[in-house]
């Protein structure tokens, strides 16, 4: 008998997915390792990007071939864009080349921590949604920003766990818990900064709906195995959230019954 009752599907912009793990396709030592990692991750959505390339350079061809072969839904990004105009233009280029109106919207506000520019992000999201895009914004964990992104029509939010590529996990649990508490009915995916499967499980235990990451898998010694480890952790975290975690307590409480304790005698 399974106690893991079927739940409402993980639905993003009207499309349902059985996996809650979104995987990036950059930074792998080889296209083959990327391919194997996507398979082992059980992901159904992968992120990818667009970059200037010399026509003679066919390095990206194998990656593109394997991504298409995976059958995953494509989620192109606007990584590296520092202005609203750059992000909007790159989103339009992505829509044409990948034939999808889904876009992981990134507007970088600072080179040191690659923190999203909340003002640029909101403006770009507004423009792109009016142009028919389905925007998945990579945002900070600021509650008001997230509410404003919903106001302009975003149906998914992707707050950071910590800065991209740092592997620091969930840096601001208070903000993340507040976000989940205040925005209950919108899918929220923790995007970036996770370095270990335990951190992904923690985010899922907090009630987040999914996890997007890249570096932690791509830079592992064995990326396909790490992809599987994250997939298992995300599943475990989701089950734990559904099961309901116990409340933390300050004082110890024995789990073995105290009645009938041997070697105890009335003084």
């Amino acid at each position, binding site marked *: 008998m399974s106690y893991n009752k079927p739940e409402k599907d993980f639905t993003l912009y009207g499309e349902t997915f059985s996996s809650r793990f979104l995987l990036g396709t950059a930074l792998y030592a080889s296209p083959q390792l990327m391919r194997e990692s996507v398979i082992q991750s059980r992901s159904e959505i992968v992120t990818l990007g667009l970059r200037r390339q010399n026509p003679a350079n066919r390095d990206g061809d194998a990656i593109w071939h394997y991504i298409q072969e995976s059958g995953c839904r494509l989620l192109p990004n606007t990584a590296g864009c520092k202005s609203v105009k750059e992000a909007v233009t790159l989103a339009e280029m992505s829509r*044409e080349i990948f034939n999808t109106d889904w876009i992981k919207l990134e507007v970088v506000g600072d080179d040191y921590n690659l923190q999203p520019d909340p003002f640029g992000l909101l403006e770009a999201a507004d423009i792109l949604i009016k142009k028919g895009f389905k925007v998945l914004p990579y945002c900070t964990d600021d509650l008001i920003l997230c509410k404003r992104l919903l106001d302009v029509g975003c149906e998914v939010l992707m707050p950071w766990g910590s800065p991209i590529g740092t592997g620091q996990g969930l840096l601001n649990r208070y903000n993340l818990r507040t976000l989940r508490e205040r925005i209950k009915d919108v899918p929220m995916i923790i995007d970036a900064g996770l370095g270990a499967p335990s951190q992904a499980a923690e985010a899922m235990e907090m009630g987040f709906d999914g996890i997007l990451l890249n570096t932690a898998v791509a830079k592992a010694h064995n990326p396909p195995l790490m992809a599987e480890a994250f997939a298992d952790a995300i599943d475990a975290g989701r089950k734990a959230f559904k099961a309901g975690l116990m409340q933390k307590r300050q004082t110890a409480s024995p789990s073995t019954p105290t009645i009938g304790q041997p070697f105890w005698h009335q003084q």
Partner: protein
Amino acid sequence: MTIELSVNNEIKTLADKVLLSVALQQWGYGDTKIAVAINGEFVPRSTYPERELFNGDQIDIVKPVGGG
């Protein structure tokens, strides 16, 4: 008469009044999956055959890569 323009930050020279579709062939992008922006504005593929290039144009040509 020639014009000078920037393609992915490299200076290129072209004959005057060349169309984007012709220039892309000339630069070797004929059969590759690309998207184009000129002076920061997206240029839809359907308009390549009629898009004239001008001196000083800044052209960005992008291809798919892995991304996070």
